[in-house]
């Protein structure tokens, strides 16, 4: 039925839907963007690991750099300065905002605004031809995220602020003040966009009701979204919770399976049939709250309309906005206290040694897990699991359901459109997943 290079996702992937003799669709998703990070990071000194791993994905480079730093620090038993922890938390909050805003701007909003229109219109370029101002407003959120990362870390893609042991330098006071002054405006814009997205979801109620409602086992780090150390992983769900997974038994719990016709891998948990889910929907269904005022107000609005736990993958887009608002609230708190944490010790030295450790980071799309083995200061082994490694079975389940609905639909544009919408609910990053 369809063979296509996937557009409006991050990275390189191909979707293939074949219809068998009995009219049943068979869905395949492949990515061949393998670059061999695990191979050529080996042998490098630990000081280079953040620079190397950061290049795994430009979109999520902050997570990869930070993950490399934390894994190395844990492997060699180094505690970073308190001020550096706060600065890293600030960076993570800005990255969470920026990553969600990129997904919303580039990939999601055109779908929600014009779900049934021609794919030629249903994107940023098509919208721009119709109304430049709308696109300008859509891009304003991303522009703020980019500028926030640039102010505090020098650049938005591959910044060098976190280093093993702490930070290179604290952001300048002027940059922090400028960032804080810009918060009220962007908060207003984020809340306005959130209202728009909630309204659009109500307008697309049928789609929300149909798309990805299969209950899945949610999975999230036990540490808060901006936490940066191992705190165990929590899991729960209708298909049977498995409690908290600790570092020492992670490898025994997780099974990696190669995905057919692809260089993607899938994380499976023995005892779980399928559908382990990470990301915004998973997090909120585990925590039930964001713990910050405005974000919880957004969540309350969603609960009123859609109930709780939240079902339907499309709702994850509304949660992106809630998490962006939560990030802004946390950024505001951190900036208000900046005088107490900024300007002290930047980093601690990391002596060459032997060790191995995992690091877990809650990224915008879910858990990033890093494993590093070090010997004499040099990397002997490095491993990484991306959010998509967990989400892929669930994603394919939803695509399969959509493909089933699409069989017999005369409009190929509509078939493609709905399959694209289903995939983008998971905001898959093939850059991250196909290292």
């Amino acid at each position, binding site marked *: 039925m369809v063979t296509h290079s996937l557009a409006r996702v991050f990275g390189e992937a191909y979707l293939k839907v074949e219809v068998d003799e009995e009219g049943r669709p068979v869905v395949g998703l492949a990515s*061949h963007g393998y670059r061999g990070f695990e*191979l050529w990071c080996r042998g*490098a000194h630990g000081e280079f690991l953040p620079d190397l791993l950061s290049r795994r994905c430009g979109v999520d480079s902050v997570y990869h750099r930070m993950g490399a730093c934390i894994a190395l620090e844990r492997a060699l038993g180094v505690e970073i300065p308190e001020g550096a922890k706060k600065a890293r938390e600030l960076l993570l909050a800005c990255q969470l905002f920026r990553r969600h805003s990129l997904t919303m701007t580039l990939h999601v909003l055109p779908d929600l605004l014009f779900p049934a229109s021609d794919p030629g219109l249903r994107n940023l*370029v098509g919208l721009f031809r119709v109304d430049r101002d709308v696109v300008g407003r859509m891009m304003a959120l991303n522009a703020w995220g980019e500028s926030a990362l640039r102010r505090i870390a020098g650049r938005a893609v591959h910044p060098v602020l976190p280093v093993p042991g702490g930070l290179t330098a604290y952001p300048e006071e002027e940059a922090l003040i400028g960032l804080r002054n810009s918060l009220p405006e962007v908060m207003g814009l984020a809340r306005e966009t959130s209202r728009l997205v909630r309204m659009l979801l109500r307008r697309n109620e049928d789609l929300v009701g149909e798309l990805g409602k299969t209950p899945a086992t949610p999975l999230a780090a036990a540490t808060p979204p901006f936490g940066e150390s191992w705190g165990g992983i929590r899991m729960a769900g209708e298909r049977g919770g498995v409690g908290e997974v600790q570092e020492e038994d992670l490898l025994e719990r997780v099974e990696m399976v190669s995905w057919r016709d692809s260089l993607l891998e899938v994380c499976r948990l023995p005892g779980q049939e399928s559908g382990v889910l990470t990301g915004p929907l998973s997090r909120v269904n585990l925590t039930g709250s964001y713990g910050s005022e405005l974000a919880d107000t957004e969540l309350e609005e969603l609960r009123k309309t859609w109930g709780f736990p939240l079902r339907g993958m499309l709702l994850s887009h509304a949660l992106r906005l809630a998490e962006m608002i939560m990030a802004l609230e946390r950024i505001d708190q951190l900036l208000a206290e900046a005088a107490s944490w900024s300007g002290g010790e930047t980093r601690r030295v990391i002596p060459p040694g032997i060790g191995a450790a995992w690091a877990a980071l809650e990224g915008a799309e879910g858990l990033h897990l890093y494993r590093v083995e070090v010997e004499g200061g040099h990397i002997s082994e490095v491993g990484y699991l991306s959010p998509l490694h967990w989400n892929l079975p669930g994603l394919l389940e939803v695509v399969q359901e959509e493909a089933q609905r699409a069989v017999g639909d005369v409009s190929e544009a509509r078939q493609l459109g709905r399959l694209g919408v289903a995939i983008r609910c998971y905001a898959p990053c093939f850059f991250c997943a196909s290292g």
Partner: protein
Amino acid sequence: MAVVQLGSCGGCQLSLLDLGERFLEIMESYSMEYFLMIKEADAPPEVDIALVEGTVRHARHLAMARMTRERANLLVALGTCSVFGGVQGLCNAHGEGRWEESLSRAGAGEDIPMFTRRVMPLDAYVSVDFRLPGCPVPAELLWSFLQQVGEGGRPARETATVCAECPRTGRGEGGGPHRFIEEDSRPGTCFLEQGYLCLGPLTRDGCASRCPGSWDYPCRGCRGPSDGALAFQQLDPLRESLRRLSRSTGEKEEKVVELFMDAPQAFFMFSLAEPTFRGRRRGGTSGLVFRI
């Protein structure tokens, strides 16, 4: 305009999007015909200008690079991966056996496209009209380039090195060589003079020297080798770095090199795939690249 992605991290495409308001101006000046990150399309059509990010890693990439070349009036290698091979060039330090083992561990079956035996810059496969290195390409340079091309110009830029823009000066107190994370460095003083590896003297400028200048972090060479490093054997990244570290630490070069068991990552993190460095007898990458 077409924006084409080969084997990459997407960071240079983000640089284009991060131009913000100016990106909207680009969309007004050029008709954006192909840019998979933001719009659906089957294949790049005939365009005036194609920005190609990433390296050719497998047969699909090669077909895409060739198709883009045929259909683009101007082809621009966007980013260090495309211009010099980038970090992916570090694959070249490993033999085919290890690469195949690595592919196999990643789950490669029979239906995957054929991978290239060696990572090469884009201009090893198709002719390139302009090269815009950077990891990612600095947004200001990209903007300035697109403006000039849009006005019918053929931009050229005399390059200097990162040191030309770096505010760090002064002399260290001897000692070293050191690894950056294993010692505390002195702010404001040249890293090399303190005995730390910094590729600033061998790396092209254009980044405003932000890492060493503003972020107290040694240059890793992400803008790619300077014109001097490419043209002159005595400015080879390995040879010249060892010479400078030897001078600042008072140790013999043979002693300094012992610290760098990870020479591919240390001296050629972003340029191991650059063919110019392979033929050099002293320095260069000839001893670091796996011979096919």
